[in-house]
C-alpha cells in the first residue's frame, strides 16, 4: 500500500487521485480476516455455511449463531466484523418487514439484495460514518407457487375477467453477495472470509451453472468446502454452522432453517473422509 501516508485514506467518502476509496478497501481487509462463509445455489434450494472460529473454550458449543433468518425465506451469513453483520441483518429484517407492509407478500431475494446494496453503499458516502466491515451472503427461495396475499380471506370470483397467465414460471433460488462498497452480484456459488480463495476454487469445480446439483448434495459439498478452506488455519478450533432453504416440496418447505444436526454431522463425516482421501492421494504421488 504505497498510498498510505498520502492522507487520502483518513476520511470516508474521499477519493484518492487515482480513483480509489481507501476506507472501503480497509473494510475489505477486515472481511478478509473473518471466518470463511459460503453459499451454494442448488437447483432445489440454497445452502449457507460458515466456519465459526472458536475464540474461547468457555463459549457454549452451538451458541452465538452466525447465520440469521430474515422474514421466513431468506438467510444471511457474513464474514468480517460480527457486530456489523448483526446490524446488517437487523436492517435486512426491517426491509423485509416494510416490503410486507407495502405489498402484503414476502420480499423477493433479488429485491432484498438490491435494497441492502443501496444501504451499504450509503455508508461509503459520508465522513461521519465508516463502511461496513462485512461481506454478506444473502440466500433465499422465492415461492414458486401461487402465493396468497397476506391477510387474504377468500379466493375471489370464480368467473369473469382476469389477467393472470397460467403456468408461467415463478420463484426459485436466489444467492447474492454484498461487499463493503455496496457492490453486489448474483452468484451460483459465493465465498468470502479468510479461506475464500480455496473455497472459490472448490466451488468452481462443482459445475453449478448447469443447475444439476441437488440441495442434499449441496449440503455435503458446503461442509467439505468449509473444511477445505479451514486447512490453512488448522491450528484454530472451529464449528461448522449450516442453514438451508429448500423448494416448497423440499425438506424446509421454502423456509430458511438450520440444517438438522444429523444431516450436518453426516455432511461433516463426508467432508473429513474427502479430506483424508486427498491426503492419501498426495502421499501416493510422492
Amino acid at each position, binding site marked *: 500500500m504505497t498510498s498510505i501516508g498520502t492522507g487520502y485514506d483518513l476520511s470516508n467518502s474521499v477519493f484518492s487521485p487515482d480513483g480509489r476509496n481507501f476506507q472501503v478497501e480497509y473494510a475489505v481487509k477486515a472481511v478478509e480476516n473473518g471466518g470463511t462463509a459460503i453459499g451454494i445455489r442448488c437447483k432445489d434450494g440454497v445452502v449457507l455455511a460458515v466456519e465459526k472460529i472458536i475464540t474461547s473454550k468457555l463459549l457454549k458449543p452451538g451458541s452465538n*449463531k452466525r447465520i*440469521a*433468518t430474515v*422474514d*421466513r425465506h431468506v438467510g444471511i451469513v457474513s464474514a468480517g466484523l460480527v457486530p456489523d453483520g448483526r446490524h446488517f441483518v437487523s436492517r435486512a*429484517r426491517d426491509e423485509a*418487514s416494510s416490503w*410486507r407492509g407495502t405489498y*402484503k407478500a414476502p420480499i423477493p431475494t433479488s429485491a432484498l439484495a438490491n435494497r441492502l446494496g443501496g444501504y451499504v453503499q450509503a455508508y461509503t458516502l459520508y465522513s461521519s460514518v465508516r463502511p461496513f466491515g462485512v461481506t454478506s451472503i444473502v440466500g433465499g427461495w422465492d415461492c414458486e407457487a401461487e402465493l396468497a396475499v*397476506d*391477510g*387474504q*380471506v*377468500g*379466493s375471489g370470483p370464480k368467473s369473469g375477467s382476469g389477467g393472470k397467465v397460467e403456468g408461467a414460471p415463478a420463484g426459485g433460488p436466489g444467492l447474492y453477495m454484498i461487499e463493503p462498497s455496496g457492490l453486489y452480484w448474483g452468484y451460483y456459488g459465493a465465498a468470502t472470509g479468510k479461506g475464500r480463495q480455496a473455497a472459490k476454487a472448490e466451488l468452481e469445480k462443482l459445475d453449478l451453472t448447469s443447475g444439476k446439483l441437488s440441495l442434499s448434495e449441496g449440503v455435503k459439498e458446503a461442509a467439505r468446502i468449509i473444511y477445505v478452506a479451514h486447512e490453512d488455519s488448522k491450528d484454530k478450533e472451529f464449528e461448522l454452522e449450516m442453514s438451508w432453504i429448500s423448494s416448497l416440496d423440499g425438506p424446509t418447505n421454502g423456509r430458511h432453517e*438450520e440444517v438438522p444436526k444429523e444431516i450436518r454431522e453426516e455432511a461433516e463425516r463426508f467432508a473429513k473422509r474427502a479430506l483424508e482421501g486427498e491426503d492419501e492421494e498426495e502421499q501416493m504421488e510422492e
Partner: protein
Amino acid sequence: MDHFPGTWGRPRNDVYGAYDPTYLQTTGPKTHTSSPAVTGTSVIGVKFNGGVVLATDNLASYGSLARFTDVKRLRVFGDNAVVGFGGDVSDMQYIDRLLESIDIRENYSTHGNMLNAKNLHTYLAKVFYKRRSEFNPLWNHVLVAGFDVDGKPFLSSADLLGTTFSAPHLATGFGAHLAVPILRRRFPEEMPIEEITREEAVSALKDCLKVLFYRDARSIDKYSIAVITKEGIDLKEDEQIEGQSWAFAERIRGYGRQTN
C-alpha cells in the same frame, strides 16, 4: 328545461323542499371506524380430551347482504394455535397480518415460535383493550384455541372491548345464544373434558352450526373446522352442513306457505 347544470340530478326543491344543509356535518369526530362494515357471524369452540375444536361458517356479510361466501375465518398461528374471528373482516385481516409479523419475528430465534395459544390470547386481549381505549376499536370477537404452557387444551375468548372469558365450550355472536345451550346440554358442567372424545366434540359443533344456519340469518351452510391436537392442526375450510331438514320451518310465520 332547467338551464342550471348545478341543480341537475338533485331532488327538486318544488317537490321535496329545500335541502337541509345541517345534514352535511363538516366537524365532529371521525365515526366510521367505530362500527363494523363487512362482518362474520358466530365462532364456536369445544375442548375435548387432548385438544380443542373450533368452527365458523365461511360467510362475510355486508349488512344483511351475504356478500362473500368463501371467507376463511379460522386463522392458524404457529404450530398449534388457531384464532376464530367474528366481527369485522377487515379488522380480522389487520390482526392476521399483525400475527403474521409476530410469527416471523419469533422465528428469528433458533428455537422458533415458542408462543402458545395462551400467550396469543393474552396479547390479543391487550391489543383489543388498547384500541378500544383509543376510541378506535378492532371490531371483533375472537376465540383462541390451542394449548397452554403445561400442554393442556386451551380455549378462551377476547372481544372488542378487551374483555376475556374462558370456558370448556364457547361461542361468539349469535352462537352465544343458540350454540352455548346446546353445548351445555351435551357437555354438562360436572363432566370433565377428559371424558369428551374428539368425535363427540366435532359432532356437537356440526350440530351447532346446523342450528345456527337454521336460525341465524347472517349465516351460510359452508363452514370451516379446525381440530387442534398435539399432533398438529387439522384444518378443513370447505365443508358443507349435511343432513338439513327445513320441515320445522313450515310452521314459522313468514317462511313457508303461510303468508300472515
